[in-house]
């Protein structure tokens, strides 16, 4: 199963430290996201399996001990919110 983020044009992102406010133009829904959700969305430049995504994040953010189970939980949340779709 692959995970897919919306195209960049579909989202408006505003930094409201420490969170990120995200407006999804497709749904009209506003999301308040905490790390690592914005980073996950940014990393999904193309549809990826969870292993591919974990590898990208580990590399980008220099993660010492990347945990696939924790990533799966975050991805499920993003799927439930409609921000990430599965193919």
């Amino acid at each position, binding site marked *: 199963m692959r995970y897919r983020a919306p195209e960049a044009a579909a989202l408006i992102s505003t930094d409201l430290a420490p969170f990120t406010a995200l407006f999804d133009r*497709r*749904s*009209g*829904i506003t999301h308040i996201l905490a790390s690592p959700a914005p980073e996950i969305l940014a990393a999904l430049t193309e549809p990826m399996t969870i292993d591919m995504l974990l590898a990208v994040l580990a590399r980008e953010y220099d993660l010492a001990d990347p945990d696939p189970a924790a990533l799966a939980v975050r991805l499920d949340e993003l799927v*439930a*919110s*409609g921000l990430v*779709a*599965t193919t």
Partner: protein
Amino acid sequence: MGRAVTDARLLVTALVDPSGLRLDTDWTALIAIARAEQLIGTLAHRLDGLPVPETVAMLLADARDAAEQGRRTALWEAEMARRALAVTDTPVVLLKGTAYVAAGLLAGRGRSIGDLDILVPRGRIDRVEAALIAAGWEWVKPDPYDDDYYRRWMHELPPMIHRERDRMIDVHHTILPLTARQTPDAAALIDRAVPLNDGLSVLCPADMIVHAATHLFADGDLAGGLRNLWDIHCLIDEFGTGGLADRAAHHGLLPAVARAARLAHQLYRTDVPQQWRADAPTDALFRRRLLARDGWGRSTRPVTRLAFYIRSHWLRMPPAMLARHLWIKWRRN
């Protein structure tokens, strides 16, 4: 300003012939009636670009924006349902307002859209229900009597609402209650459905008109009738009536479709074939009910309304069941 506005004819005239509206129209009454009839977005599209007083122009622009917002929300809800139901491998047919906007139809322009309505095969209903619950939808009402009644006799699951998005979905397996006198061919509806993208479909044009007419007359008490009739006007305007009579007859719903076509012609001057241009004896009573709205947006003509409310229940249920149902409802209230 002239006499008080006592029925909805002002709105009907504005929709049919918007450029004929005079600048000294009772705009406040027109807007109040349109809002009460859920037709303000439609009116705003019909009047777009025509000269109106400044405040009216702003209100109508607001209404167009609101309809656009509603369209986006409806399409997103359909998309989320599609994602949830992809795993069930079931044909999902969009109905009513969501279908009109998803297919880019005239009937969708400016339309206010409420819940998401979908049609699925009866045999798949349990699977669909389970998939929706897994994706975050839940039951609206926990009342066991209503639930039992719904499952046995209605044409749809009890209403569900999404936990996070707070939007309702109605899952139908046919287009009339099972207790109604007519039994439309649900399998044929799904069979002739027109695919959009990615697993969603809409009814074929003739079936859309049949459904709209059914919903207007055989299922409801005509509340919101002017809007439903406008949908029918737009569908006939866009697709014509070729094959409509035959299709309606196949579903056993020709009288409803015929009456809808006649009333659309009488009120909205819809271009219909000759056999639907003459008044039938009770058409005047239906027009009276449809136009029962005054310039303050109030429902008027209470005796007519009550007659139609009783009639709508009579159409849905055999008499013994109706008596029991109304008795239980009355006791509960």
